[in-house]
């Protein structure tokens, strides 16, 4: 799984590429630790090239959301595929995040 973090002003965009399975989640979680500590702005999780998400991956999204809401920030999920959208819907995560569609 490849993770690219870009920061522009108060907006941090995290590009997730590949499968966010249990194994990858451990590494991604460590990579995003700093982001949770400074989650006062907007965090965009760009999932355009993410092909799979496991429960561990969902927990990463949840941790970020919690950190952001405690610090006055927000998490936007961008460009999810229909398969991942379905996972978000079945788990009730769809109601938790602002979902941004690709134009």
């Amino acid at each position, binding site marked *: 799984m490849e993770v690219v973090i870009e920061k522009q002003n108060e907006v941090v965009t995290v590009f997730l590429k590949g499968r966010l399975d249990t194994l990858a989640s451990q590494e991604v979680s460590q990579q995003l630790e700093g982001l949770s500590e400074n989650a006062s702005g907007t965090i965009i999780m760009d999932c355009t090239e993410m092909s799979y998400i496991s*429960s561990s991956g969902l927990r990463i999204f949840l941790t970020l959301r919690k950190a952001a809401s405690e610090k006055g920030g927000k998490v936007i999920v961008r460009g999810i595929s229909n398969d991942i959208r379905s996972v978000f819907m079945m*788990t009730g995560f769809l109601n938790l995040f602002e979902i941004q*569609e690709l134009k």
Partner: protein
Amino acid sequence: MNETTFDPHVQELLTQYHQLLPVYEQMGDLVPGMLRNFFAEAGIIVASVEHRIKTEKSLTGKLQLKGQKYHHINDVTDIVGIRVITFYNDDVGKVTSVLERLFVVDWENSIDKRKALEIDSFGYLSLHYICSIPTETYTDPKYPEMNEIRFEVQMRTVLQHAWANMNHDTGYKSGVEIPRVYKRNLSRLAGMLELVDDEFSRIRHELADYRRQVQKLVASGNLSEIPLDGDAFKSYLEIGPFDGLMRRIASINQAEIQPVNLSPFLNLFLAMGFKTLGDIDALIKNYYDAAYQIACYQIGLTDIDILSSSVAPQNLCTAYILKKGGGRVGLKWMFDTLNGPSEANEILADMLEEQTKDLAFMNQ
């Protein structure tokens, strides 16, 4: 440079003022902080807590007028001034209780005009407490004078504050006597604001009564008597009406339940035509199995082990809409209502309709 010559006594008081200025500044930071903390702990919501230190210019003016009244600068009780502005007039009483608890109140010099106002006069119902910090509340070896110096706390509502500012701008201290008609208009306004303040408090009391009534009805189970609104739904959620179904759904994969705010479902229930909490209760009873069947189909063959607590109401609404013949249009409408309109909700509606079409509840 011109130097103004003051009476030696006034000069002496001003020298004392300058020596104590760091203590005043320290108090100006400390006292509002203590009050804010206490208000937060006691759940008292105030509009603001402000402070100011009397300027040398203002103090000089006061001392030139009545300097002989003061033997020491500590006899001037309003050099450190705190102002607490509340939203409701009955919160002013709570603020006074906090002051009485935290500080020593100099009753002789405190003013409560709320009781003394003439029956035919209206104006700012001034309430000023003169206080000092007792050593058992706070001491600082660097500033031992802090426990000796008295400070003034003004308490007023937002509306009284607005009136006092307008009155100050248009009349008091302007140096020009304003015509009687304007004075009278200001007085009329004060009377009206006093009524508005009382009305706000009355409405707050009525709302609190209504909430208590709703809570009682929810607890007694008379749900069909309770109209569906924000307060009723909030009280209803407190008894965890979806918890049983949610636990059953989570047991499919021994999933962890992530509790989330379910209040966004209120709009959906209202849009579905539900009128009372009894309608939601009936939804849970009548569609419990259907909601469970949807969850079994969706997550039973996956390794998903985390679910938001919104799955239970979401699946109940899904089953209800489908059984009522809403189809994919109804499902898209549900997602639009819950998550905001989006074309992507059509995809979800298609998926959901496809997933559920062969489930037992759809064919019973």
